[in-house]
């Protein structure tokens, strides 16, 4: 069992030209009279490096590829360039201060991360949020699923050479950016949830703006489908590429559209419903081949289904308070804190000491746009967590990348990597 020898720069091989001068890669002769094929070239592998600064790696991912001709023999991903030690930082912050760390992980769907974290802590504390808050969070999470899938669609298409799709999807994403901005004041770093509720209720006219977005959005999905779904180039570059069987996908821990494209019916919204997802009427698209094309179809359909959920959620959006009526978790209103000594002390204590959580631990996972997003929090009864762990879907999905591309062509590496929908902020944390 010997590993194959590697050589970086074939063109500097002294066997090729006298003195090891740079020459072009040898052309294989038709009949072989005047040229001589060097056997040492034929058997040698080349090592190439993609990234970490490369547009097609969607962040700072570095792939070391061992190539035999154009075939990938081995792929070794390197991560950690963006490591910010969020989990360690979280142990030095109180429960509410962690919320801003969560949206910096997945800046492509920040609200899903905000909500997932708040849900895990609320489960640990035994806090049940209000009905309005539940529906609002469902709206925000489904909106960000569309937000994230649109980015995936645009960038994957551009990686495969289809530039137009990018313009269509980013125009629509801009609308969601506006919705983010109106709700939270920020376009990406939303930090919108609080333990027990939200930073603020929906502003006036926000729902109408969302409805307007949905009305304009569905025709765009249809248009993009006409651009891609039956496009010969798109089909040729995605069908049968990067496929993974259902059994392997489960064993490698894939989740989200990547898993469902392989034909596994695992969607947390259906299997472990949270926030009354079981009462919404929606379908979960399932692929059958597990290749890039099926992942694309799954995500396209998920966007339509998200719009379905959004419409139902808007219809049932109840009135009432957005925050729980529990003064030990929620800050008193600003007017009370400014006018009333007790409320001011209360405000001070909640801000300075933080909310306490009971001893214990909780695991909560939601269906994020990328897959299963798990939040695991452990408390020793203080106002800071002992451990805050994020089960990032991208981290586990990208770990299966070598399995999918070993044996494929170099040009497929870009396509497969794009199809996994990774975000490096969350992989590196």
């Amino acid at each position, binding site marked *: 069992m010997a590993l194959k020898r590697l050589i970086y720069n074939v063109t500097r091989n002294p066997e090729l030209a006298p003195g090891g001068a740079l020459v072009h890669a040898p052309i294989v002769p038709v009949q072989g009279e005047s040229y001589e094929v060097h056997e040492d070239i034929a058997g040698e592998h080349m090592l190439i490096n993609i990234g970490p600064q490369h547009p097609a790696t969607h962040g700072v991912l570095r792939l070391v590829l061992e190539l035999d001709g154009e075939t990938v023999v081995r792929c070794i991903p390197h991560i950690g360039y963006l490591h910010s030690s969020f989990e360690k930082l979280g142990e030095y912050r109180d429960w509410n201060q962690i919320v801003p760390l969560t949206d910096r992980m997945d800046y492509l769907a920040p609200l899903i991360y905000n909500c997932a974290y708040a849900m895990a802590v609320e489960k640990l504390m035994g806090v049940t949020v209000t009905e309005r808050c539940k529906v609002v969070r469902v709206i925000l999470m489904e909106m960000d699923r569309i937000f994230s899938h649109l980015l995936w669609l645009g960038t994957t298409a551009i990686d495969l050479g289809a530039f137009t799709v990018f313009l269509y999807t980013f125009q629509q994403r801009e609308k969601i950016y506006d919705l983010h901005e109106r709700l939270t004041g920020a376009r990406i770093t939303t930090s919108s949830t609080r333990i027990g509720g939200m930073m603020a209720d929906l502003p006036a006219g926000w729902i109408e703006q969302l409805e307007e977005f949905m009305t304009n959005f569905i025709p765009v999905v249809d248009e993009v489908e006409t651009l891609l779904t039956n496009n010969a180039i798109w089909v040729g570059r995605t069908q049968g590429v990067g496929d993974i069987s259902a059994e392997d996908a489960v064993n490698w*821990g894939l989740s989200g559209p990547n898993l469902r494209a392989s034909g596994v019916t695992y969607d947390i919204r259906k299997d472990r419903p949270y926030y009354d997802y079981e009462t919404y009427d929606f379908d979960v698209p399932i692929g059958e081949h597990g290749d890039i094309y099926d992942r694309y179809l799954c995500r396209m359909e998920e966007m339509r289904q998200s719009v379905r959920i959004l419409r139902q959620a808007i219809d049932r959006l109840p009135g009432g308070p957005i925050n729980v009526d529990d003064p030990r978790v929620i800050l008193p209103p600003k007017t009370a804190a400014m006018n009333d000594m007790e409320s001011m002390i209360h405000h001070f204590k909640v801000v300075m000491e933080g909310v306490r959580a009971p001893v214990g631990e909780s695991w909560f996972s939601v269906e994020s746009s990328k897959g299963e997003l798990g939040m695991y929090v452990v408390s020793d009864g203080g106002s800071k967590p002992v451990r805050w762990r994020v089960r990032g879907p991208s981290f586990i999905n990208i770990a299966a990348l070598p399995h999918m591309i070993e044996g494929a062509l170099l040009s497929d590496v870009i396509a497969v990597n794009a199809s996994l929908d990774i975000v490096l902020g969350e992989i590196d944390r």
Partner: protein
Amino acid sequence: MSDAFKKGLEGLDQGPRPSEAADDGAPPPAGDLPEHPSVEALRGEFGESVLRHQVTAGDEHVVYVPAERNVEILGWLRDAPEHRYDFLQDLTAVDHGGGRAIQVVYQLWSIPNKLNLRVKCELPLDALEIESVFHLWRAADWLEREVFDMFGVVFHGHPDLRRILMPYNYAEGHPLRKDFPLRGRFSRAEQTRRALSMKTEDHYSPQELDIAHALGQPLPDVMVEGGPGVPNQGEMPGIGIGAG
């Protein structure tokens, strides 16, 4: 409103009002635990090896098992037809600090049976070693590397156990341990000096690919020539490089 907050102020030190009975960390009496089919089956199969069974946050079942039997028990949970925990949701570790044992946490989900179970193994700080579950779930590959990187837990049998998030030459220890200071062990000047003196060619050396070999770790069967993962070039259609 302010009346409510006056009452809230009194109770602030106790934390939020739980919706159910407060769990102060002590395991409730055994008779009160909700049933979990796999825990009962585990007890029947492994008897005394189920060290503790605990329910947290209302409905989450945690089972403590001895670290030296982890592969046996997890493998049984994965393969037993009535359980089939085929999806490794997460593998992580928890350091409670104060010299207490580090817990390795396996979060399992059964796609066919829709069951959740958390299995924990406790490792004393002077023996941070456990058998790898790479051969049960390939998902454990990077997760175990991350736990090794962050906590220093050595997974025996892992084919490629090296740092994953921190640089390979990181010399300050394992960051998520409670005895690791937030800003690292070295001074800022030393950290900067080390970062600047890194040689870029280290990152492109062929040895990097052979690192598992160099560390004396057995290679996974996908990397062994003729193994199931690496396509045999003779069998691949359309690729005739080297055939002459």
